[in-house]
């Protein structure tokens, strides 16, 4: 299957030299993706603040434009006009680079997220592996920021970031493998096309594991230990202001958008849907996923750091492995035309496993003798 970009490049080759016909559409595509991401991020910021207002029985921002729709723009202008403060004892170079290293990989994820039929920058044959690899780079940026700030709060945040992100990478990847087994391909386009039944119905357990893991990867409540404002104030970006802080802020929403896009692609059958145009279906799905994330943020308290780790290693990881084993056996035994059998079986397995875990396994943790 060829993407829209490939077709455009092929058409340009007719009357432009070959290198120009290759490069110009590619750059245009990158700019379109960046514009798309930033627009949705601005929408997300507004959407989250309005939704949180509703959850917290207040109005939320409503002064800038109709329903406060221009509030994120006002916020952005305010942040950009602020003085850029670098602590005296900070490691200045690393302090400068860190926000870039956090933000750029998040933009790079969008290269392989199909927004509509064929609307993908590059249809890599290892698309989902590329996502897993690229999204891990941000951790280094977060650790650099926390180390270079020369602040004890951000140092604690840095320690937490390494532990949390490395632990949650495993269940996330294992639940992706379940999807890949059924779809039969790593390519994001092929995964979407394989979903005549959305994979959330075929692999409910995989979806739950992936969603919780993704929440931890994007530092969202109840796993927002990196910036736990009641404990370590703001965590890794405590010493950042101005444009550098804006990079972290955009990155936070950018990664939420990226994971919403990945969840949509892997589990919610991407752009597919009856009636409406594909791009509208994609937007509806990413906003629905984000709404779920905001809902959890508004409702749940935070886990403690040792409970967070035991939840990953004793809760999510065994679940992900079991899910993978079950799916692998089913793919081997059940023919593709009989996918509804898988649907019933996997819902039963998910219910039994979750009940079993809730009985057998408690998040304990506790006092250490000092």
């Amino acid at each position: 299957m060829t993407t829209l970009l490939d077709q455009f490049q092929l058409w340009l080759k007719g009357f432009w030299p070959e290198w120009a016909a290759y490069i110009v559409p590619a750059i245009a595509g990158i700019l379109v993706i960046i514009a798309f991401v930033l627009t949705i991020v601005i929408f997300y910021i507004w959407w989250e603040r309005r939704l949180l207002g509703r959850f917290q029985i207040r109005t939320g921002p409503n002064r800038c434009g109709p329903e406060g729709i221009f509030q994120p723009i006002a916020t952005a202008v305010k942040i950009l006009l602020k003085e850029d403060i670098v602590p005296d004892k900070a490691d200045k170079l690393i302090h400068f680079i860190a926000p870039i290293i956090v933000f750029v990989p998040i933009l790079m994820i969008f290269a392989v997220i199909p927004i509509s039929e064929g609307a993908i920058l590059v249809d890599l044959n290892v698309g989902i592996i590329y996502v897993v690899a690229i999204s891990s780079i941000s951790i280094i940026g977060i650790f650099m920021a926390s180390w270079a700030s020369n602040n004890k709060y951000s140092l604690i945040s840095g320690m937490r970031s390494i532990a949390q992100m490395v632990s949650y990478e495993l269940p996330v990847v294992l639940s992706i493998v379940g999807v890949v087994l059924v779809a039969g391909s790593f390519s994001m386009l092929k995964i979407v096309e394989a979903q005549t039944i959305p994979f959330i119905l075929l692999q409910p357990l995989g979806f739950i594991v992936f969603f919780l893991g993704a929440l931890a990867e994007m530092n969202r409540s109840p796993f927002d230990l990196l910036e736990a404002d009641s404990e370590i104030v703001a965590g890794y970006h405590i010493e950042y202001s101005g444009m550098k802080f804006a990079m972290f802020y955009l990155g936070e929403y950018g990664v939420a958008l990226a994971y919403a896009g990945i969840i949509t692609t892997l589990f919610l059958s991407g752009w597919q849907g009856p009636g409406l145009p594909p791009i509208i279906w994609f937007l509806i799905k990413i906003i629905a996923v984000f709404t779920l994330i905001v809902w959890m943020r508004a409702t749940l308290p935070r886990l403690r750091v040792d409970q967070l780790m035991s939840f990953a290693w004793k809760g999510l990881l065994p679940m992900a492995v079991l899910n993978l084993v079950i799916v692998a056996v089913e793919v081997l035994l059940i023919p593709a035309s009989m996918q509804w059998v898988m649907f019933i079986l996997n819902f039963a397995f998910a219910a039994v496993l979750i009940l079993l875990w809730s009985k057998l396994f408690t998040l304990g943790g506790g006092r250490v003798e000092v």
Partner: protein
Amino acid sequence: MSIQTEPFILNIGPQHPSTHGVFRLRVTLDGEVVVNVEPVIGYLHRGIEKLAEGRTYTQNIPFTDRLDYLSSMTNNLAYCLAMEKLADIKVPERAEYIRVIFSEIMRISSHLMAVGFFINDLGAMMTPVLYMWREREKIMDMFEMVSGQRLLYNFMRIGGVSQDIPGEFLPAVKKFVAEMPKYLDEYDQLLAKNEILLVRSKGVGILPKETAISIGASGPVLRASGVKWDIRQLDPYSIYERFDFAIPTGEVGDCYDRYWVRMQEMRQSVRILEQALAQMPEKGEVCASVPQFFRPPRGEAYGYIEAPKGNLGFYIVSDGSIAPYRLHIYPPTLINITALQDMVKGWKVADLIIIFGSIDVVLGEIDR
């Protein structure tokens, strides 16, 4: 190469979102584990006890508002009780009922804030606080009706209260009392069975019964440790002997018990309010006749009440002039935070924050 670790010192506060004021904790951390805690107080010291010596007895009432500023009515009450003991003043019947109604509404308001910010310290992103504020807002509206103020009321006087309550106040209280159990059920529904709240607060920061008694803890902190001790029943002041209410006590003395005790106490306060509203006389004096330049006889008196946060006492020494010779305040939260060091050792930073939050401190009272 072997990896060496060493503990480091972290200053939590005086500017920190979870210290509930200007409080500083000098924490020694080994990784995430709290090895030692040294509370540093005094950032809000205003010298209220010394200032009081230069003012008349009535002029001192506004100072008491500024102690525990989340429950200023009960602070007024404790001070006025001490003065009434000293000069042997009989408070009119209607004024006593007004005082009890105000104290119990104040207790609900203070506990709403305590529970809300405790869950906020757990990381629940302002939502519980804003739900609790919905009810606290009504309470503040009611106090605004009677005193014109929303936080520091300066309403009670030696021998009664400063003025009679306006006509719209009692209907507002009745409406509030009728609604409050429904809201408390809603909080229980939202919070009491929350898995994360349970794993974070059950068994965390245990204050054993013996320790709680030996440090002299009081209020919900003491009752959560399983000690049935409430001045309202043990040594009834005002007219508390006329009301029927239970004293909820916890079992273990962990953070969850302290949360639970506060939730139950709000229900008991609603019960007291119901009885007080039914018994309250329609008309009558609201203040005994006390001269403007009030000169109590020589002597000393100690007035103490069950304030929302514990045993609040005022010790007054009079030399027969218009100003106190010495005023000493016994603040409940200052006594309660002395248990902090024992409670947090060995727990994580996140636990330190919630254990501190579960004690429910107000810095105006600690630093005076």
